[in-house]
């Protein structure tokens, strides 16, 4: 069994609970032992304008394990990766180390997308998702500013993963438009407008569902979907599953393991359809 350190991030305890639950279940099914960072703290998200302070807050988490660190949140991921790049500066590294409990000596950070891409390779999946049309939603910070996971302009890592899972990726033109999440409290109108366009774009592309890889994106597209429908007078009702929930379905895990009851737009009818098409085969 391989071991990976897990940085859940603040959202995993509340808004993103189904992401956390499904991540743990999928890791178990894949034979990966997730070891939660002992004393993790907030990475600063997008709300610490002082860049040095932001690097410091993110970097504290990097000193807590010598294992590769996996996170499911694209904001945490981008912040941790950026901190690693900034800490190549010896002056900054020395300054930070003068206040840290454990010295920073370099770290490896991965997104759960990378963990899944790696461990699902050549793996026989018990549940076939064939015929399921999935719109992968990248959002911003999985690839940006240049996290190394894939091209920040023309990525394909999520489409590849959808194919690995046996489903069909659907091309939505707005798959990389910002969901507006970081300003949803202070600038609700701006945030809802972005999320509305993303949902419509996936819908027009003929997707059965959207696949999300960040809890803030998920909040905007799933929990806020009802608000968006009312505001814009449209009927959307498109399920938004976390990448770990979709992978879990393909791995044969049950709705409770994947917390499918926690999504605002229920994915259960869709899951039912997947099971039915299997028995029909």
């Amino acid at each position, binding site marked *: 069994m391989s071991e990976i350190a897990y940085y859940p991030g603040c959202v995993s305890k509340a*808004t*993103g609970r189904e992401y956390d639950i499904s991540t743990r279940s999928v890791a178990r099914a894949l034979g990966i032992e997730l070891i939660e960072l002992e004393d993790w703290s907030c990475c600063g998200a997008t*709300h610490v304008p*002082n*860049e040095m302070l932001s690097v410091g807050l993110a970097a504290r988490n990097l000193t807590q394990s010598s294992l590769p660190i996996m996170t499911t949140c694209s904001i945490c991921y981008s912040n941790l990766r950026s901190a690693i790049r900034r800490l190549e500066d010896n002056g900054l590294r020395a300054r930070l180390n003068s206040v840290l409990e454990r010295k920073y000596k370099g770290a490896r950070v991965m997104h759960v997308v990378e963990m899944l891409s790696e461990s699902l390779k050549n793996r026989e999946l018990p549940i076939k998702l064939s015929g399921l049309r999935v719109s992968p939603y990248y959002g911003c910070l999985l690839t940006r500013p240049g996290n190394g996971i894939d091209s920040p302009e023309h990525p394909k890592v999520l489409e590849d993963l959808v194919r690995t899972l046996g489903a069909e990726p659907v091309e939505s033109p707005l798959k990389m438009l910002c969901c507006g999440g970081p300003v949803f409290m202070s*600038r609700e109108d701006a945030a809802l407008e972005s999320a509305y366009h993303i949902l419509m774009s996936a819908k027009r592309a003929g997707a059965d569902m959207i696949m999300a890889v960040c809890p803030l994106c998920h909040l905007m597209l799933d929990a806020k979907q009802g*608000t968006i429908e009312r505001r814009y007078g449209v009927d959307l009702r498109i399920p938004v599953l976390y990448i770990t929930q979709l992978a879990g379905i393909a791995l044969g895990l049950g709705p409770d393991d994947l917390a499918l009851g926690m999504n605002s737009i229920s994915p259960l009818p869709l899951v039912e359809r997947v099971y039915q098409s299997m028995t029909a085969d």
Partner: protein
Amino acid sequence: MSGAKFTEEVIRLAGEEIRTCIQCGTCSSSCSTAHLMDNSIRKLIRLVLDGRKIEALASDSIWLCTSCLLCTVRCPRGIRPKAVVSALRQICEREGIRSRDASFERIFMDQIRSMGRISEVLLSAAYALRNPDAAVPIMEMGIELLSRGKVSLDPGSVKGMDEIERIFREFENE
């Protein structure tokens, strides 16, 4: 702070590359909230370089930036427009220029400093208290999340609070 000093301060915080801006507008055309802004990101950088401090700091655009970083990926001069926005937010804070957006960042950072982690409930409550008109959408959101079992008061406690305090002290006056 004079106009020239203001320009130098933004450059110190956000990078020397800013001086090389050719005003091509790639940043603005990549921006997901550009259509809502009073000054485009391109113009904001012009204001900074021209030392037009009051206009730059009063611009609503600073707060409409969602930190999506598409401008940063695309700038042909290697400028990080999001870093310029962050620098302006930081200067606003230092100069005591208040806004609802600034209050959100203040609450967010205070919570990291006092608890180490963010509790969405406490964050939302503190923000709604200072900005009562935000209370209705926040309540609406809260009800939706509560019905899904996704509200938690306790984000878990952090032992290394002294360490977090030291990080703040080392870098907060940057």
